[in-house]
């Protein structure tokens, strides 16, 4: 039965994808062929105090990340299906045990100063990324990154890891070997840095780029401190694209004929982490009760202004292997109450529910959830803390808190990073031998075996995981009507502007 359902789902996804492609194609045809030229004025969020020029450091400004992603090439970038697309690496192969990965540098890849990219440049950059950015940005140890010939780089990991090409997306920027000053921003990317001032930059087309040449002459990036100013700039026509401006500006722009609203599905997961190891939510029945107690549609409408989709407690909603038929959980107040009774859950006291204003709607989501769960007799005391304080004390420790994640196109990514017994980011303190086994199996396998393991992971998450994933927020960009070829994928794929053009 499971197999048929999966097949059905996959064919369904395929049809959707075809329809999407068809929709895009017809759009493009209506405007004739893609046109070359013009300057795209982009606004992105960022603040001066956090401005960062070093592409391997913690780029917490959207504007800095956008600039880096256009000036430098990562080894791989996000795609729809498959979720990993080539960039500086044109292809990659794994050894049979998924431990030794060989990446081939794209033919004709050159730095902006004309020098060809060598394997040594890539090795030096990836090692630097590890030392500056840590294991979360480069999962491979410095000594395990080596050159093999002039244009191949080998990454060796201690344990099998089918995910390495995915983990090397976006941040793995290559710079010329030995670079210490990043002011000139010598990269290999589709655009060259022409000028930079206080977080704002002007980029011009790199005619020598190894990929399909961009169509835009230039991209001007302006940093915005607040979403309000970013939205106003787009509404007033001072910029052509407000990147990740959010649902509220999206609603305003939707009423205007001279603007388009780009909704990128599965952009941000906003959910709740329930501590599974101990404490009040350790009993899986209590967690299921909470999951049954929330009204997901109401949450998406109230918290995301309707710019989002309902989810069903499984992480990785944009993964082509995501089982949308499995991950459905409608509100059932009676069943939730019954489960709480069976688990002897103490409804006489209230429970701290910690949240922080980190992503849009996060605090609101906690308040709405607390109100909804009162219907099943669970009293939650919403506590809003500063994000910095949250990561110092609440995160990984408290029994109940809100969480958000921006990369949502891999079921296995979340399983491996957040839910195995050994991970250092186990937000729900989830320790489940069957889950660990399924994750290990997926990491070591490929093909049908990989697919099967990914479905086991989702089943366990749905049945007894610690996450309450009620919905996914769309990424909302607003753009002037003539802008074409904008990114449509969720998460950090929003920075991929190299295919944009102006009709």
């Amino acid at each position, binding site marked *: 039965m499971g197999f048929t359902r999966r097949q059905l789902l996959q064919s369904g996804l395929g049809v959707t994808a075809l329809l999407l492609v068809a929709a895009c194609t017809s759009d493009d045809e209506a405007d004739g062929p893609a046109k070359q030229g013009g300057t795209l004025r982009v606004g992105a969020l960022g603040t001066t105090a956090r401005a960062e020029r070093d592409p391997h450091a913690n780029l917490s400004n959207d504007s800095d990340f956008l600039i880096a992603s256009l000036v430098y090439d990562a080894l791989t970038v996000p795609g729809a299906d498959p979720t990993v697309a080539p960039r500086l690496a044109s292809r990659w192969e794994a050894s049979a045990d998924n431990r030794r990965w060989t990446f081939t540098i794209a033919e004709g890849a050159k730095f902006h100063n004309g020098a060809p990219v060598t394997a040594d440049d890539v090795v030096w950059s990836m090692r630097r990324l590890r030392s500056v950015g840590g294991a979360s940005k480069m999962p491979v140890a410095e000594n395990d990154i080596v050159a093999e010939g002039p244009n191949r780089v080998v990454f060796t990991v201690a344990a099998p890891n089918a995910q390495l090409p995915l983990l090397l997306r976006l941040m793995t920027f290559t710079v010329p070997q030995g670079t210490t000053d990043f002011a000139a921003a010598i990269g290999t990317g589709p655009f060259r840095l022409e000028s930079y*001032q206080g977080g704002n930059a002007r980029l011009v087309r790199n005619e020598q780029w190894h990929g399909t040449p961009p169509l835009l002459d230039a991209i001007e990036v302006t940093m915005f*401190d607040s979403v309000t100013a970013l939205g106003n700039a787009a509404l007033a026509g001072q910029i052509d694209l407000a990147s990740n401006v959010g649902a509220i500006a999206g609603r305003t722009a939707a009423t205007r004929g001279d603007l388009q609203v780009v909704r990128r599905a599965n952009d941000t997961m906003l959910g709740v982490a329930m501590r599974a190891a101990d404490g009040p939510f350790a009993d899986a029945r209590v967690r299921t009760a909470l999951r049954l107690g929330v009204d997901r549609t109401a949450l998406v409408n109230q918290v995301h202004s309707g710019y989002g989709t309902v989810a069903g407690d499984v992480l990785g909603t944009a993964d082509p292997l995501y089982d949308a038929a499995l991950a459905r959980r409608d509100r059932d107040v009676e069943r939730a109450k019954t489960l709480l009774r069976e688990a002897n859950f103490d409804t006489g006291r209230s429970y701290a529910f910690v949240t922080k204003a980190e992503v849009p709607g996060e605090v609101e989501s906690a308040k709405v959830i607390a109100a909804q769960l009162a219907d099943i007799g669970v009293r939650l005391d919403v506590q809003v803390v500063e994000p910095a304080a949250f990561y110092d004390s609440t995160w990984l420790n408290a029994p109940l808190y809100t969480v958000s994640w921006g990369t949502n196109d891999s079921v296995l990514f979340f399983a491996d990073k957040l839910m195995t017994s050994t991970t250092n980011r186990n937000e729900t303190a989830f320790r489940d031998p069957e889950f660990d086994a399924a994750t290990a199996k997926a990491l070591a396998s490929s093909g049908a075996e990989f697919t099967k393991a990914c479905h086991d992971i989702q089943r366990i998450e749905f049945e007894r995981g610690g996450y309450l994933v009620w919905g996914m927020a769309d990424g909302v960009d607003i753009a002037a009507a003539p802008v074409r070829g904008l990114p449509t994928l969720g998460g950090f794929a929003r920075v991929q502007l190299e295919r944009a053009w102006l009709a």
Partner: protein
Amino acid sequence: MTVVRTFALPLLRRIALLVALLAIVFVAVDLLPGSAARSALGRDAGQGELAAKEHELGLDRALPVQFWHWLTGVLTGDFGQTARGTSVGDLLADKFPQTLLLGGIALALTVTVSLALGCWWALRPTAFGARLLQPASTVAVAVPEFVCGTLLILVFSLATGWLPAVTITDRSGFPAGPEMLILPVLALAIPQIGWNARVVRSALLDVATAPHVENAVLEGLAPRTVLLRHMLPFAAPAIVAGYATSVGMLFGGALVVETLFNYPGVGAVLAGSVADRDTATVAAVVALTAIVIMMLLAVADFVRTWASGGTR
């Protein structure tokens, strides 16, 4: 001796006040939850990395030691580094002139317009325009810069398209066109104009009953002459005190207005560094702003001393 009493002592008092203020900033940022190391490294940083970063930033030392180290650095012109390793001095050199420009124009506009309105109001209290000033100035004082700015954007940019809604900078780091300054300056100046027009008017009305003014009027001098030569000089101390108050309000308001209009000043630097618990940057912004305000207050004091001394 007079010089010492008039200038040196108040100056010393102000410097002591500034040092106390900066000490309070250090304590306040320290009391906030969270750490600069965590903000700089992100949520994935482990305890080891955090400890190393804290050591690098000197956050593992006692707070008084950190303060003393920072203060002695400032005296030699070194404002230290942000938690992300950029020079605070460079950061401020990059952004502070823009805030001075915005605040300076707003102050100039406040002084000119409120003087003109206040004089007119005092001279012709029954004119239609002057009658309007009573409610209008009250509203202007009561409306915060944020609301004022939002309304200006809605009316003059989004609805009519006459003026830009936000500031876009050019390669120099300054607004790309002078029209981008209009709305931020107005958002800052309108509440202050409302306040100071009232101050000017009441100061003038106070001196209007003075014997020498009544004398001048009885002698048949032109109203303008009476105003300029017999009233304004006597009202000056009160008026200048009003403007001195506005200086602080203008710089405080600039922080809000800069965010609203995406204006490239120190407001965003301050907001971001408070959020990041970046004490050195917060203290540097506070110090610089405080020094500018102190200098303007000293000018105000000087004008008041001069005005009251000269007319007595």
